[in-house]
């Protein structure tokens, strides 16, 4: 059941910045048949569920950590097997550092033997980044500590030397400020759009690597009223099943049981 507390006939409140993000992420999933989302990823998870709701049944979503949105029955390896079979069209990755060649660092800062900071680790990134056709990098914060010229540790590389089979790789980067597309041939990011209320200068000031710039950079599209209703209604209720606190905070939603 939808738990949107707002009466239907009022004008919707304008999109929250996170709703713009979810919408931008969701747009990047168009045409995907199977999208998988890692654990503890409420914004990508919401985006995937929104993409599914907009796909008229064509898009299947697997949320790791969700009971309802997990179709797997072969244990923990099935996601990786499934991706290796070419059945997963899109996946989200993040990084404590991300550089201009789309290398991501999920492991440590400084010398790996005596790191200045240590993080969780690579999880499946060093593999999924190679086999999933459309990997979307996502990090809500956007500053020069994160977006660095060169990551301290390559947990998963953005590009690969010749001789290695790689049907997948980086497709785009979405942050709290902007959307960048990744050009695999050039091995560089290109600014695609800047979110409402932010500027190209703000993006460049907060990015530690070079970004290709088009002649004019459009504003990131915001969801239409009907998409927003979809997001705040049935999608929010589905999100709440896996991320109750997140859904309650952003949408005022409770799980649809």
């Amino acid at each position, binding site marked *: 059941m939808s738990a949107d507390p707002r009466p239907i006939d009022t004008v919707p409140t304008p999109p929250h910045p996170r709703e713009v993000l979810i919408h931008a992420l969701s747009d990047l999933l168009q045409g995907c048949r199977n999208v998988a989302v890692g*654990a*503890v990823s409420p914004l990508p998870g919401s985006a995937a569920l929104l993409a599914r709701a907009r796909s008229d049944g064509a898009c299947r979503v697997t949320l790791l*950590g969700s*009971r309802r949105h997990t179709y*797997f*029955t*072969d*244990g*923990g*390896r099935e996601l*990786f097997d499934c991706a*290796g079979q070419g059945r997963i069209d899109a996946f989200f990755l993040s990084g404590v550092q991300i550089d201009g060649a789309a290398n991501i660092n*999920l*492991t*440590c800062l400084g010398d*790996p*033997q*005596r*790191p*200045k*900071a*240590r*993080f*969780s*680790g*690579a*999880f*499946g*990134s*060093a*593999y*999924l*980044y*190679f*086999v999933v056709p459309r990997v979307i990098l996502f990090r809500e914060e956007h500053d020069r500590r994160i977006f660095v010229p060169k990551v301290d*540790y*390559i*947990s*998963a*590389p953005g*590009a*690969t*030397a*010749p*001789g*290695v*089979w*790689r049907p997948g790789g980086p497709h785009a980067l979405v942050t709290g400020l902007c959307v960048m597309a990744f050009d695999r041939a050039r091995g560089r990011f290109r600014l695609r759009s800047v979110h409402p209320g932010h500027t190209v200068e703000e993006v460049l000031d907060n990015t530690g690597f070079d970004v290709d710039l088009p002649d004019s950079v459009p504003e990131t599209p915001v969801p239409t009223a009907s998409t927003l209703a979809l997001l705040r209604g049935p999608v929010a209720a589905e999100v709440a099943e896996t991320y109750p606190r997140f859904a309650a905070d952003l949408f005022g939603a409770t799980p649809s049981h």
Partner: protein
Amino acid sequence: MTVCRDVGDLVARIPDGAKLAVPPDYGGVAVTATLALVEAGRRGLHLVCLPSSGLQADMLIAAGCVDTIETAAVTLGEAGLPPAFGRAAKAGTLRILDATCPALHAGFRAAEAGVPFQAVRGIIGSDLLRHRPDWRIVDNPFPEAPEDRRIVVVPAIRPDVALFHAPRADRDGNVWVGRRRELVTLAHAARATLVTVEEIVDTDLLAEEATAAGVLPALYVTAVARAPGGARPLGLQDLYDPEPAVVADWARAVAVGDLPAGLAAVRGRQAA
């Protein structure tokens, strides 16, 4: 197959220095048994995670039980990085074999199939490989495409002991694992498998075809012990949910060096 008197009896079968294989925090962790290992003062464990760990690894690291951890990640979920792990990593007092999930699945699968190695896609170009001299790049004998010439192979992972918690076992030692089939792989790969369970039932879990599909056969099970609530404060399938507040209590206590308070928070969720 032995039905142990209690969990202490069970973990007595894990010697110092054992290569100990465990599931992820969401997959049936034997927390009661982990407390027993801590209490027994086990030392020098090589912890290998299929494919990650969190609270369990941090308990064993905090208590000084672990020399080496081989894992794709360690995380307490919303409570962030496990503090004892983070401290040991920075101090350089813990040997960390960073992996990626499918490489661990591949290593266990190789052991399961009785072969010395398995190939894994990807990885080449990551720094993981630079720090894993036990992983190799080989010529691919069966390229998919002309550029498909080099591929990583990882060795079979054959733990001395696999340890996990499951909903139930029968008197013969058959264990219900349901969809958590990485527990089956752990047991196939390990030389010995120790299981704590919510209950030991009198019916034969293999008797019904509908039930048999989710059962690890006794053939692979060395010993079981009853431990109701034995995965708390982590979750167990559809039986009970994880308790993130308790995990956060652990993290807070251990972050300030108060191991007894951290252990007390976890122990407070165990059955008497």
